[in-house]
């Protein structure tokens, strides 16, 4: 029992420590290098920034439900934590929660959190003047005002509807190949038959998974949820101090968790501190942000006009992978 508890807690701690460095690796070694600038210190985006925010003065957001609003980053972190928890082999006996369906559910929580964040935030960034602008002819003086975060909430809702298709399709490819939705079975299958990644369906699904990973992390070019050009930070706009620190930590942690999930589903190597397999998880957790940053550094923001076809094409690729998995 002690061995089991140490295994779970140790793996989560390792994941947490690695995740703190990932944003720094992404920004210092990839973005900054490509953009021919020095970039931030490697510890700055993932470690020093959250520490700094933890000690900043907290502000009360202009939100109808400020406590709920401030707690949402924690909910996001918790969902990422639960995914990591149930892909650790010690939790496989729990069964239902250590399955693809449960992971889809946890990922959905992470996605829907953005809708709530956007809906509950009412920042001053979209305040209008207290009087109509007569010099400009005061066009449409009585139109209902919307907030920038409202737009991001609507976008988050749209992303739930179509943006996350690729990653969910990719998740089910290993399930079809191994004929089981349980992670224990998927890992066991790969230990006998070799990694799913080395099959045709596995390669296609891995590509689809990676694009889904970028969409889920709202990384360029799939950053419509919080594009600087209009909604600025989108759902995160009013997060300050501790809440902002949790936003940063959650993103880094989700990067590690999704990489570990990939390792489980496509390589059959779950995160476990008692085996050398944890190193594979760490390596993938580092490779994914590097690949992601390399792609994002050369891409503009996609509006829905570009987002829809890319998601459709990726989903079709995912369906091809599913069909290949059946064959």
């Amino acid at each position, binding site marked *: 029992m002690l061995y089991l508890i140490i295994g779970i807690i140790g793996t989560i701690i390792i994941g947490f420590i690695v995740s703190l460095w990932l944003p720094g690796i992404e920004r210092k070694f990839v973005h900054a290098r490509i953009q*021919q600038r020095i970039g931030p210190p490697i510890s700055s985006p993932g470690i020093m920034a959250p520490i700094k925010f933890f000690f900043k003065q907290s502000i009360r957001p202009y939100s109808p439900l400020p406590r709920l609003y401030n707690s949402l980053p924690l909910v996001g972190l918790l969902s990422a934590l639960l995914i990591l928890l149930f892909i650790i082999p010690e939790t496989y006996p729990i069964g239902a929660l250590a399955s693809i369906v449960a992971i889809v559910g946890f990922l959905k929580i992470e996605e829907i959190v953005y809708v709530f964040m956007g809906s509950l935030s009412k920042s001053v960034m979209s305040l209008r003047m207290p009087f109509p*602008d007569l010099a400009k002819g005061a066009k449409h003086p009585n139109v209902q005002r919307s907030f920038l975060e409202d*737009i991001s909430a609507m976008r988050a809702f749209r992303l739930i509807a179509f943006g996350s298709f690729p990653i969910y399709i990719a998740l089910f490819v290993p399930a079809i190949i191994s004929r089981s939705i349980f992670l224990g079975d998927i890992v066991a299958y790969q230990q006998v038959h070799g990694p799913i990644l080395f099959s045709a369906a596995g390669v296609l699904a891995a590509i689809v998974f990676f694009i889904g990973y970028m969409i889920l992390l709202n990384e360029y*070019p799939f950053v419509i949820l919080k594009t*600087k*050009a209009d909604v600025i930070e989108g759902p995160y706009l009013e997060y300050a101090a501790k809440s902002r620190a949790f936003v940063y930590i959650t993103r880094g942690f989700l990067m590690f968790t999704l990489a570990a999930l990939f390792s489980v589903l496509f390589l059959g190597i779950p995160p476990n501190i008692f085996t050398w397999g944890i190193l594979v998880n760490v390596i993938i957790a580092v490779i994914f942000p590097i690949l992601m940053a390399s792609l994002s550094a050369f891409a503009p923001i996609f509006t829905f006009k570009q987002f829809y076809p890319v998601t459709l094409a990726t989903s079709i690729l995912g369906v091809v992978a599913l069909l290949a998995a059946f064959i």
Partner: protein
Amino acid sequence: MDKNVIETEITMGTVHSAAIEPYRVRLFVEDEIVKDAEITVGVNHRGVERIMEGLPVEKANSLTEKICGICSGVHLWNSVLVAEKGLEIEIPERASYIRIIVAELERIHSHLLYLAHGNEVLGHETFSMRLFYIRETVMELLRMIGGNRVQYGVPIIGGIRPRAELDEMKIQKIREGLDYLEEKIKEFADRFTSDPMIMSRITGVCPIKREDALRLAVTGPTLRATGVEFDQRRKMECYDPFEFDIITQDDGDIKSNLLVRVFEIFESIKIIRQAVENLPNGAIVDRSWEMQDTDIIKSYVEAPRGTLYHSYAIEEGRVRNVVIRTPSIANIGAMQYAVIGHHITDAQLGIVQCDPCFTCTDRAIEIIK
């Protein structure tokens, strides 16, 4: 427009991450599609004209350089031209050539800033960073000539400041700088136009039709991007010795606006090369003029953003009735027009495509009691 069809208003600014200057845009949207737009400036009014009133001409001229942080030189140049026209001063040919070198370098740095900012709003930070990196060469050349990166203060009444005289070493540095710029901007243009993701974002987005551009009195590269072949430089005598093309594009969309400015950089390089190779010998300033009273004198020059207007009268050596009209004020109408029917994310890009410089546009205020 029927007011009933508009569902909501999205207000951006006066402080916004996509805006490098303070301005306010109200977008009237329906399902994230802009149905109408209203851009308001006015938070950066400094009353430069009012401060200039009654100042000695030289002092007033130097104040015009503070109007804009991007095209400071062209403001000073135009203000000096007003005095020179009024006082009927013929400046030495060498001074005219050096003024043109500085003005064209300024155009290059302004266009590079435009391209970098456009890429930033487009979300392409890598291109944006690289363009700023390339722009450094121009900034350093301007610093070499004028002693300052932003306010180089080259023109004075009767010619140019002695500090801005070009010796052989400086000319050689300008030649080397132009070679570097030409190579790097060609590389950028090739990569930019061959990127399908970028082309998908900018082609056919926020277009301004030629007839609407004329109706809205659009000026500068934004007008030329709609296919209208008008450049104030063609009407300026000092540009007569130089051979250059007026760059136009047909579509008036974001792509056309970006490309017009890219090609104009090559034309500016061409002009500077001609000026450097044929730089006349002789004096750089004529100090033999005498101050006298003048009527209101008008002067137009082609600033990086379009036609810039300055006018004032001189009374007892002091300026009176100063009026300055910057190109961006003419282009605000086009910005409001261009974004209609497009997605909110494209709207900021649609505004930026007109190369707004709202801080120098803040020239008048209306006090509502």
